[in-house]
């Protein structure tokens, strides 16, 4: 039997050539550092983020001078005082946090059955349909989405024409706070389902059958078995939806009719409309601190291990 590099396929030869290059620039003795090398791009990205944050923190301690439209040299807490004192800011902060809580709760409640049905269905056609429904929104831009909502929820939209036809009058949902929440839930749902699906997949169907045979009805099984076992997915999805919502800019703009602004809108206005970079920075710093604290508390309570980042696994 002859073994020769020439007998290898072109692809294999390419791969072995790449291997030779790797061996030349990254010799075997550097192997322990390989993990760090892979981390490098991520570290760079985070470093850029941190640098930007540092600039922002610094800006947040300087007041705007309106005779030159530059930040003053002196450090001061004025911007933070303004954020805390102006009723406008407390209003939007409360509104944003409340929205994040409500949207997270509703999204999880809706996403779980969706993910469950998608994972458990025996019919390939059903699963395909659910998957299409899941990924379709990703291909639809914000603007198209905005018009879509107008068509459905507008004064003369689908919902109101239907209600009128049924003799039930009309409801005003678009350009209201509930409208923003509806838009956010619809926007977040695919993210939540995508994060819950693996969690549901990780629960063997046998476990549910076992619970059933042991005397638990469907809801008891849901409460005592399914929810605890999918907790990692629920926590992860909850954290993602919460942070995406609390920092969202587009949906209040699209669905809020201008009177349901979130924190991000106020930050944007400060940076780009009224040139209050310092004030906006202060608001941004508070937002980052607040969101980080919430996520930190969640992880402290349920443990990062619930995200599945732990070595130990069952069977």
């Amino acid at each position: 039997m002859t073994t020769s590099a020439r007998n290898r396929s072109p692809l294999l030869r390419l791969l072995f050539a790449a291997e030779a290059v790797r061996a030349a620039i990254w010799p075997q003795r550097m192997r322990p550092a390989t993990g760090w090398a892979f981390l490098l791009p991520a570290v760079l990205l985070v470093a850029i983020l941190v640098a930007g944050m540092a600039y922002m923190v610094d800006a947040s301690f300087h007041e705007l001078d309106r005779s030159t439209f530059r930040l003053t040299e002196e450090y001061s807490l004025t911007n933070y005082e303004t954020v805390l004192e102006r009723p406008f800011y407390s209003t939007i902060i409360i509104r944003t946090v409340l929205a994040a809580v409500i949207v997270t709760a509703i999204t999880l409640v809706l996403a779980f059955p969706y993910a469950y049905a998608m994972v458990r269905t025996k019919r390939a056609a059903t699963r395909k349909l659910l998957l299409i429904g899941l990924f379709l929104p990703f291909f639809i831009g914000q603007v198209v989405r905005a018009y879509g909502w107008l068509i459905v929820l507008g004064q003369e939209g689908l919902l109101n024409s239907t209600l009128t036809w049924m003799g039930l009058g009309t409801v005003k949902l678009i350009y209201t706070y509930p409208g923003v929440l509806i838009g956010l839930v619809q926007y977040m749902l695919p993210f939540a389902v995508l994060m819950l699906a693996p969690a549901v997949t990780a629960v063997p169907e046998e476990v549910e059958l076992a619970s059933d045979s042991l005397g638990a009805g469907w809801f008891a099984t849901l409460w005592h078995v399914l929810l605890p076992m999918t907790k990692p997915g629920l926590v992860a999805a909850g954290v993602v939806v919460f942070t995406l919502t609390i920092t969202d800019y587009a949906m209040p703009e699209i669905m809020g009719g201008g009177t349901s602004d979130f924190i991000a809108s106020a930050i944007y206005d400060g940076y780009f409309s009224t040139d209050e970079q310092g004030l906006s920075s202060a608001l941004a710093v508070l937002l980052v601190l607040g969101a980080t604290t919430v996520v930190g508390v969640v992880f402290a309570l349920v443990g990062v291990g619930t995200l599945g980042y732990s070595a130990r696994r069952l069977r």
Partner: protein
Amino acid sequence: MTKTTLTGTRRFLLPRRRLLAGAGALGASATIGGSALLSRLARAQDVEKPEEIIVRAWGGVWVESLDAGVSQPFTAATGIAVRHDLTEDNEIRPRIWSAVDQGRVPPIHVNWDTTTNATKSALRGVTEDLSDLANLEGLLPAAQPAGFDSYPIVNTYSYVYVLAYREEAFPEGPPTSWNVMLEERFKGRVALYDDGIGFHPVAVILGGGTIDDIPDNMEPGWDWLRRLKAQEPLLGEDPDFTTWFQNGEIDVACTIISNAREAKMNGIPVAWTVPQEGAKVDTDGLWIPKGLPENELYWAKEYVNFALSPAAMETWCNGLGLPPTRPGLTPPEDLAGDPAYPTTQEDFARLISVPTPVLVEHEADWFAKFNEIMQG
């Protein structure tokens, strides 16, 4: 888009004698403008031409008018292509500021901006002086920004924040007062700009104050806006108004005449009026950021100069439906005599103008107060 102002109605008007002379000698003045342009272009053979000039503009009818009136003829005359950058005016400003701060070449050659925002950039010292442009000759006093001896900005036209309304909602004829916004039947069907721009001074008058209360006593205005808040108004930006009118979401709005006119030209049954309380009038202008290479600065100035020439200005401003800061040009047919297209002393007397320095100083606070009321 954020829009702003001027310093007193008088600045829009020529002294009576000049007005008469100007009307008689329109052809002559156009010739003067044209020959000035040609002489400069002749000199310009020595200055290296850039491949293109980047001009920031607003989209839709705005950029179309600029292109037809200024950019295309400019390219035809000089061979320099003009690229329109449709970045939001508010988003380009911080980028120019940081470019100048860091000694980089700014992202655009010419910024088409509201006078208030342009003034902020001028105060920050990032604008080139345009005092030596030949075509400044013959412009109205309003072309020069208030509070400056030089021309860091050239104001090119004025515009009015009109009361736009859906004609079907007013079978009895056009509304005569902004107070219709408070009528029960328009609850949830009223719209303003999302920071209240163009409306703060009007609100003061509506709330029982006078023009002299601005800026020291804005409280009557805030009182009136609190009553409007109960009407659940929609707050948006230029394109929103068109969308909302089109979909029957609103009946009444305070918006710039150009947006209402564009909607009307698109077949939406919208009309506009200047109510008895008046309406706010503002100006826009052109400016050039500091930090351009010398030759590019030269050609950027040529572009602005070209924009100020009578022919270019007439096409551009008529496309927008806005009165230019150059007297004696022919207004668009549909707007002649419209109080929202102010050209005479009587027209301006009905409008409310707040000096730019006041706006620069106070508008951010008014936005904040407006937000506080509307977001509550």
